[in-house]
């Protein structure tokens, strides 16, 4: 086992990793930018090193500085958290070449699944349904038109290296397809230095459902059931929950099996998530693999009782999974709300500043994962998430009641937050009866 781990991240996920290490008896080395100097969670690490000024590009994204901190900190492994370098295969490679284990999947699996076209090929090989489309990149416009004729309009044009909505276009007919192809390709070339695009059937108003996976280095792969993340705004998830409401049991089971097969096929290990979209007839299609721990992992921890961060560390240390698929039970309903320092009244503009008053909700079944406290200053340099409020109750109805109760207790003063939006979401009839899709929040609020 590792004696000492470097946490290559900040904020709530850094705190989460430090907590897991502490419980496992592993020492931690934290790194921080000048903007995070003095944050309380750094005191909980055994050692903390400043690695650069506030901008992430000069600190949390500086591979050489993080490796350097890992060396002077004398660690055996690095946990990348999510974001920053978590899905950077090069970083994983550098770590391992320095004899420091990167707590994450093998580099090859990261690379293959990181590329949308090769990920799709692996999925097809594993028998996992993908959205009908071109098998790989389209070489020219005529090929694209041929594919679109076969699968039917509307179609989605996607950059193979894209993400966050960039290099993406919807085309309802041949004319807009021809125009969109050029635009998407140019945008992708500019943003990702990779002009490759492919096209696929456009699924209207889908739900987003994902399956949590754990795989060790001994060939054991299990799923930890699904999370529904359809409540999102501009591709940013706002609410995640498990089980996925109204998903037929048979579909759920098939989706979980698909995720396991896909992970097996790719040689992926450690924690990962297979993302699917689900259409209104409960057809599901593989979208991508998130090759890291996710923000919403506590949802799965609560319904399964399994600590995902600890499992990541144990897997990276070469341990076998301590349970089989049959041992993993799903209990009750867990819902997570991301609380962001954004002003919903002002187009979700970021709202950095000092938290002058903080009253946290609590009580049975309530967990708040956060590094903030009264007097903490939200930095303008990083993402706006203040924390994650997660509730776990026997039923979804009770979980919603509990979340409403928590939102009534929750006081954050000094900065604008998304709590007012959260109140409206948890009181909206369509959310309560779950007549939602990934466009619901933008259409409604």
């Amino acid at each position, binding site marked *: 086992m590792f004696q000492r781990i470097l946490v290559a991240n900040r904020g709530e996920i850094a705190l989460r990793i430090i907590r897991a290490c502490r419980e496992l008896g592993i*020492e931690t080395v934290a*790194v921080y930018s*000048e903007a995070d*100097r*003095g*944050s*309380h969670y*750094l*005191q909980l690490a*055994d*050692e*903390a*090193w*400043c*690695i*650069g*000024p506030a901008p992430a590009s000069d*600190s949390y994204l500086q591979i*050489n*500085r993080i*490796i*350097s*901190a890992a*060396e*002077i*900190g004398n660690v055996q492994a690095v946990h990348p958290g999510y974001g920053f370098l978590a899905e950077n295969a090069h970083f994983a490679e550098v770590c391992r070449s*320095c004899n420091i284990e990167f707590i994450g999947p093998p580099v090859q699996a990261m690379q293959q699944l990181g590329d949308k076209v090769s990920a799709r090929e692996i999925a097809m090989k594993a028998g996992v349904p993908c959205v009908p489309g071109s098998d790989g990149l389209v070489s020219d416009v005529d090929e694209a038109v041929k594919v679109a004729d076969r699968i039917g309009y509307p179609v989605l044009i996607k950059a193979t290296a894209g993400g966050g909505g960039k290099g993406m276009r919807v085309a309802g007919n041949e004319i807009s397809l021809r125009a969109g192809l050029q635009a998407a390709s140019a945008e992708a070339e500019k943003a990702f230095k990779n002009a490759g695009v492919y096209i696929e059937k456009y699924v209207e108003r889908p739900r987003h459902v994902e399956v949590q996976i754990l795989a060790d280095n001994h060939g054991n792969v299990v799923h930890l059931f699904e999370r529904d993340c359809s409540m999102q705004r501009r591709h940013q998830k706002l609410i995640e929950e498990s089980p996925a409401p109204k998903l037929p049991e048979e579909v759920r089971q098939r989706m979980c099996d698909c995720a396991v097969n896909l992970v097996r096929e790719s040689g992926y290990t450690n924690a990962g998530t297979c993302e699917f979209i689900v259409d209104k007839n409960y057809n599901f299609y593989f979208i991508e693999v998130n090759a890291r721990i996710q923000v919403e992992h506590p949802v799965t921890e609560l319904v399964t009782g399994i600590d995902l961060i600890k499992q990541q560390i144990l897997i990276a240390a070469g341990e076998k999974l301590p349970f089989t698929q049959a041992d993993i039970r799903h209990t009750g309903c867990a819902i997570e709300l991301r609380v962001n320092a954004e*002003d919903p*009244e*002002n187009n979700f*503009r970021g*709202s950095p*500043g*000092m938290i*002058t008053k903080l009253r946290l909700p609590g009580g049975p079944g309530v967990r708040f994962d956060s590094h903030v*406290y009264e*007097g*903490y*200053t939200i930095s303008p340099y990083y993402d706006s998430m203040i924390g994650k409020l997660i509730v776990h109750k026997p039923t979804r109805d009770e979980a919603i009641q509990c979340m409403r109760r928590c939102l009534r207790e929750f006081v954050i003063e*000094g*900065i*604008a937050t998304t709590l007012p939006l959260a109140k409206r979401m948890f009181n909206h009839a369509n959310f309560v009866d779950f007549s939602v899709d990934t466009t619901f929040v933008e259409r409604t609020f």
Partner: protein
Amino acid sequence: MAKPVENEEKGDSFDLDRIRKLLQLMKTFDVSEINLQNDDESWKIRRGPRVAYAQPAVSQGFAMPMAAPAPAAVAATAAPATPAAVPAGVTINAPTVGTFYSAASPEDPPFVSVGTVVKSDTVICMIEAMKVFNQIQAEKSGRIVEILVENGDAVGFGQPLFRIEPV
């Protein structure tokens, strides 16, 4: 604190005259805090000394407890961002995290000593990061009056290495 006011229509910004009047009133009537809010604006003003509670983030920076190799790590927290902890005078700070070496090799003499006059391009030490020995230049000119770290110490980004004074 008061969140930024949105006022899209309003061409002009805060009316400083009105604010001055309000401050005058607050002083006259010994008002310590005022918090006004309406559709267009939110004003929040406090007078008098700020209470201790208002600055936990800063005070924690100094108190950060560290385990072994603690001295270096603690020093690392005393970088320029927390000026109170920085030694008086001008300092040359570590431009990267790594291991500090005062000489090119154990056999060589140190690059600089107390009393050495440096120019901005004078090499003053090396910092090893990822097996690479980076020659660090002074970036400032002056006379070295104190060397703040030991040969072989781990140093954090921004950590003061040398104190200098004008020649």
